């Protein structure tokens, strides 16, 4: 997923899209610029959690905060592309608050990663995957097979799934089409609508 997002972000930037990647910082928070892509590395608010679900949901709260600051400084953002269930919570919060369309890119499903396992954590992750699929404005998968897997797992969301094969000539255009299919003229990104001075 790291290389996928890295390569996609570079291609989008070359294609004229301003791209901001918000991702995990293993140590201190910092901002890098990689071939024109702004990469904000965000530190989780706690150092210890008992499982990955708790970790992701605390991490995404911090992601939300950094994203909100970015959106306020930019004025508006056209689309949020959330990669995997781990970032669904942040994308949803941004959609709820700023009305920014949310694209959910699914790289794999929990049922594939943990086949025939039904621990409390598998159940939790599957429920977040389901939430992401229901709430996303568009879902991007890499193959027809994965499209079938998603619909068989979470119900009929096939109408908003786009199959975009990565690392091909059509990759960039396919992702841009997904973004364009959901983007509006800009998001409500000001505190002003709450009557709060900025």
């Amino acid at each position, binding site marked *: 997923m790291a290389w996928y997002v890295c390569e996609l972000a570079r291609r989008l930037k070359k294609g004229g899209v301003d791209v901001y990647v918000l991702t995990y910082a293993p140590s201190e928070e910092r901002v890098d610029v990689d071939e024109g892509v702004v990469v904000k590395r965000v530190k989780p608010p706690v*150092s210890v*959690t008992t499982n990955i679900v708790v970790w992701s949901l605390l991490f995404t709260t911090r992601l939300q905060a950094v994203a909100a600051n970015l959106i306020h400084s930019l004025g508006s953002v056209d689309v949020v592309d959330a990669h995997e269930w781990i970032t669904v919570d942040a994308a949803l919060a*941004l959609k709820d608050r700023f009305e920014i369309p949310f694209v959910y890119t699914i790289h794999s499903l929990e049922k594939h990663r943990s086949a025939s396992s039904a621990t409390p954590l598998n159940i939790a992750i599957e429920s977040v995957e389901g939430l992401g699929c229901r709430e996303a404005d568009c879902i991007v998968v890499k193959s027809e097979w994965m499209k079938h897997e998603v619909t068989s797992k979470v119900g009929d969301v096939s109408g908003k799934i786009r199959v975009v094969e990565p690392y091909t000539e059509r990759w960039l255009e396919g992702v841009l089409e997904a973004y364009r299919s959901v983007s509006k003229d800009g998001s409500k990104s000001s505190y002003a609508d709450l009557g709060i001075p900025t």
Partner: protein
Amino acid sequence: MALKAVMLTWEFPPRIVGGISPHVYNLSTNLVKLGVEVHVVTCDFPNTPEYEVVEGVEVHRFDSYNLPTPDFAAWIQLMNLNMQRAAARIIKSMKGGPIIVHAHDWLSAKAGIGLKHLNGLPLVSTIHATEYGRRGGIFSDYNRMIHEIEVWLGSESKRVICCSRFMAEQVQKVLGVPYEKIRVIPNGIDPSIFMNLGGVEDVRSRFADKNERLVLFVGRLVVEKGVHVLLDAIPKVLQKVDAKFVIAGDGYMKSEVVKRVAESGVASKVHVTGYLDTDTIRRLFLAADVCVIPSLYEPFGIVALEAMAAGCPVVASDTGGLSEIIEHEKTGVKVYPNNPDSLAWGILRVLESKDLVEYLKRNMREKVEREYRWDNIAQTTKSVYEEALN
């Protein structure tokens, strides 16, 4: 424009898990009387509506189990995801501020912090207890996770409300919250809940004969509440006074308590009742000769306040918030924590001195009326909101 408060709590009546539920109920209903527009965002509960107005408080219940998992820690954070979404919709529907987000305990930290950043709103938190205090330290990854969430909540909050000076010190030292951000506001009590309650004699006769004194313990049966200290003190009291002991409450120590009582040789003098409904508990406060609070850790000690409001003399450990509520031999009797001899002494001190009991009753009623009225507590809380907005 009216001040608006969005209160985040995982429990609100009729969902009652612990002390946060009645606290938020009393605080929110009294804030409304002061002109604050209060929205409580809380978990759903069987046979309760998704939205209702309770004494002026707008209560919004969200589906807290639509992202199921049997893992409690994960469920708490998934519940927060839903809580934040529900609160975000409410905030969005508000036309203009000023708006305060008020989070109760680490259980709603994620939602509170998320709403703060997304909406640019001031966050006030009430830290009812700390993981460090509940466990007597941080011993596992699970403890540390909750502890770090509490640290995070403290650092993100514009103001942190604690229920006692003891808690304020702990929040400062253990969570690292600057003292300037901390405000001490006690829990409250409404003494009128004990007025005109019939059936007190019936409840008394259920548990004790006429010639027996009635000693009451109300609390969760967990180590921090010190019920084991009471079990050790009971035979010492019975050597001098004929009494019945009622141990009311539930908890992971219940089977151990029942076993120890059965093996103690005084089983006929002790009732381990398990959970009792609120009305029965209130009648017990009115019926009992003394209420015993042998806690090892107590951020506040709401049971002491309830007993005092009912006119039931209190014998309590000299620890935590109890130390602040009870003035020794003026509004109650303090004993050494985790010391059965001292606890037995305190119980006998009350049971054997009618003059002291009359003196305590006068003073404790006056103190409750003076310091623990919910309208005063709501007024102070409103002032904290105004500070946070400025």
